[in-house]
């Protein structure tokens, strides 16, 4: 059974909006523009809700790992603590440094958020539940999320602050180093599917659970492990959070930002964390496939599972040193991922897989 794009099984919930739009009698190009703009607003809402939930969840997990309770006062187990935080951020004074580079300082959070936001164009949230199924899907996501590096450099440079500059260039060095193993791990899956479209990749893993690429031994698990390491680094999370190491750089690139500008960096960070988990689920865990429940519920459950894994990393591992970080990427991950890619290509050629 096929579902109509882009709402899939949720067509019953949102489909009437489309019919309402079509009844206005706009010409087709404008119809598309209005449609995608509405979807953009919807995706922004989804990202905001996810970020609110993830911040609360992360604080609870951190607290329970450290044998505390975490937020408890506002609502059941403090569930609307982050809503209150968001309102607080909205009403905070925007403290601007005199010596900043005005243009660069202003646009850095905008670019950071837009780069994270654009990745959601082609994330398959469920069967047929995708804004636009780009034929270069995964390459597009890799390319567009790289803009985060530029925004972090801009934030570091524009602040005219020594900590911020150090944090910015460190994060640029880290992100470009881990980009290579990440791409090489993704290539293993692209090689087997023979397509870069996110929908094709998920469709290739339909059927029984053994069709998931994480279970294609030996290269599948290796690719997943190297991917999740590189993804942790790409999402700037501990043990790879050197750009924002609190104890040495205070906060890194976003040190001079406050109020809504800081909130945008924060939102983009959680949006990126969700994006890398969603890619992991799409590539290795069969995307939306699963029995009984609707496809988007499965996708959300699996993605939150991977997010949970990232949070466990964050609160159980100590931070790496800068030299360890860079040498681990170039001297270990890059050779391993490329060897794995050649192995996978050989096995695909020889047909030694099921």
């Amino acid at each position, binding site marked *: 059974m096929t579902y109509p794009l882009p709402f899939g099984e949720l067509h019953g919930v949102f489909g009437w909006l489309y019919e309402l739009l079509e009844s206005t009698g706009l010409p087709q190009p404008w119809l598309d523009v209005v449609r*995608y703009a509405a979807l953009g607003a919807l995706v922004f809402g989804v990202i905001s809700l996810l970020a609110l939930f993830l911040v609360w969840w992360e604080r609870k997990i951190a607290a329970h790992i450290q044998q505390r309770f975490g937020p408890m006062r506002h609502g059941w187990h403090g569930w609307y603590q982050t809503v209150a935080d968001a309102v607080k951020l909205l009403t905070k004074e925007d403290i601007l*440094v005199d*010596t900043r580079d005005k243009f660069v300082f202003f646009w850095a959070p905008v670019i950071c958020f837009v780069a994270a936001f654009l990745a959601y164009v082609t994330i398959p949230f469920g069967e047929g539940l995708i804004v636009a199924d780009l034929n270069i899907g995964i390459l597009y996501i890799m390319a567009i999320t790289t803009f985060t590096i530029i925004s972090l450099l801009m934030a570091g440079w524009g602040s005219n602050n020594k900590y911020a500059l150090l944090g910015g260039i460190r994060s640029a*060095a880290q992100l*470009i180093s881990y980009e290579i193993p990440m791409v090489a791990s993704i290539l293993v899956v692209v090689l087997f599917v023979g397509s870069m479209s996110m929908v094709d990749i998920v469709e290739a893993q339909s059927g029984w659970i053994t069709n998931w690429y994480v279970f294609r031994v030996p290269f599948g698990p290796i690719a997943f492990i190297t991917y999740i390491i590189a993804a942790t680094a790409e999402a700037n999370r501990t043990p790879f959070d050197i750009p924002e190491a609190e104890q040495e750089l205070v906060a890194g690139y976003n040190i001079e930002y406050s109020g809504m500008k800081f*909130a945008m960096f924060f939102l983009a960070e959680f949006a990126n964390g969700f994006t890398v988990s969603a890619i992991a689920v799409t590539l290795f865990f069969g995307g939306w496939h699963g029995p009984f429940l609707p496809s988007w519920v499965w996708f959300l459950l699996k993605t939150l599972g991977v997010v949970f894994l990232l949070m466990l990393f964050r609160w159980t591992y100590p931070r790496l040193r800068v030299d360890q970080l860079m040498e681990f990427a*170039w001297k270990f991950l890059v050779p391993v991922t490329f060897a794995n890619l050649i192995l996978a290509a050989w096995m695909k*050629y020889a047909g030694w897989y099921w």
Partner: protein
Amino acid sequence: MSSYLAVLIFIFAGTGIVLFTFFLARLLRPSNPYPAKTVNYECAEEPIGDSWVMFNPRFYIFALIFVIFDVEAVFLFPWAVAFGQLGLYALVEMVLFILILFFGLFYAWKKGALQWV
């Protein structure tokens, strides 16, 4: 091409949403700057000099190696997509290509370019 229209619209929509929230915050927030607030944060010390200074050239070397490998990744994507139809010839070609690049990486490694400290 309609699906790439979505990317274009999302660029404008994302920028618009961010600028709108900045505008909203501007209506809601107080504004009371004074000199102690607008000076650079350096753990309560007076900052000495600019931070726009020369920094470690090692970042540049890493960026250079990254560019080489990123271009390689761009070549690898179409290869990976078409590999099913290409067969042994493509496999050997790509192994040679990766080996040549890894020879370069190994050279940089031995020269100490990957050494951070």
